[in-house]
């Protein structure tokens, strides 16, 4: 149906649409990380050397930045998830969905700033 229409431009306020897109993208990214994370942690069952060897390959600035991105995705998904729950269960949720998004993004900053200071100084501080 969407294929025969003139497009799928969303005509409502964009906040809900883009927060939804970001929720999906961060969710998929976190899921694929999780698969790898369980597999690499499973190496503790092989030998201490095998596990440590793989962990060593993660301890460089590129992976450190990847970890920062992963945590940014997780924290967004978590706070926007709380916003979705409020929109669904709180009477005033739909009315304040835009404000709730700003709230989620503000919380995201509050968590990410101290996290990035500590994490990046661990990654780049040697």
């Amino acid at each position, binding site marked *: 149906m969407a294929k025969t229409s003139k497009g799928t431009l969303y005509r409502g306020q964009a906040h809900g649409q883009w927060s939804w897109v970001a929720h999906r993208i961060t969710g998929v990214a976190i899921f694929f990380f*999780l698969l790898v994370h369980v597999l690499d942690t499973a190496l503790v069952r092989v030998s*201490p050397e095998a*596990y440590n060897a793989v962990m060593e390959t993660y301890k460089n600035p590129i992976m450190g930045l990847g970890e920062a991105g992963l945590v940014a995705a997780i924290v967004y998904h978590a706070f926007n998830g709380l916003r979705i729950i409020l929109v669904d269960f709180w009477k005033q949720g739909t009315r304040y969905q835009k404000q709730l998004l700003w709230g989620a993004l503000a919380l995201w900053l509050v968590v990410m700033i101290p*996290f990035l200071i500590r994490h990046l100084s*661990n990654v780049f501080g040697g």
Partner: protein
Amino acid sequence: MSTPLKARISVPRSKDLEVNGVKYNRSSSRRNNFEMFAWLFMRLSGVVLLVLVFVHLYVNLLVEEGGVHAIDFGFVGGKWANPFWQVWDLLLLWLAMLHGTNGLRVIIDDYAEKDRTRFWLKVFLFVTSAFVILLGTLVIFTFEPCPVGADPALLASFCTAG
């Protein structure tokens, strides 16, 4: 935009609910509440996962001197020698995998248009998820923090104490 949201259904149903002259005809079938439970599960597990994941990240990335650099076999051994962290990580594994698997199921249903494509993508998703959940569970329960014959320098400190 002009589509009426609450169309009047001509056939009367026993469950018809009428509010202000508008008939709401939500399915009342008991046969398949799966989607409702999936929807509810995403919200409940989401709240629990927020706590489980934030503590997991705080303990593994921030508390130790050096943060991520401190993660090695000895660190994992030290955590999983404690039943508290075994249960924590087991809950984390199951809830995160089920939450993520259901999320991907919904995304596949949304974007894969062909029946066969949808079917096989979901088969692949469910097989992968089952494998990862079982592997992770097995690892948490059969993990040996002080394996015999391993280099003591690589193990948690309690392995060599006493």
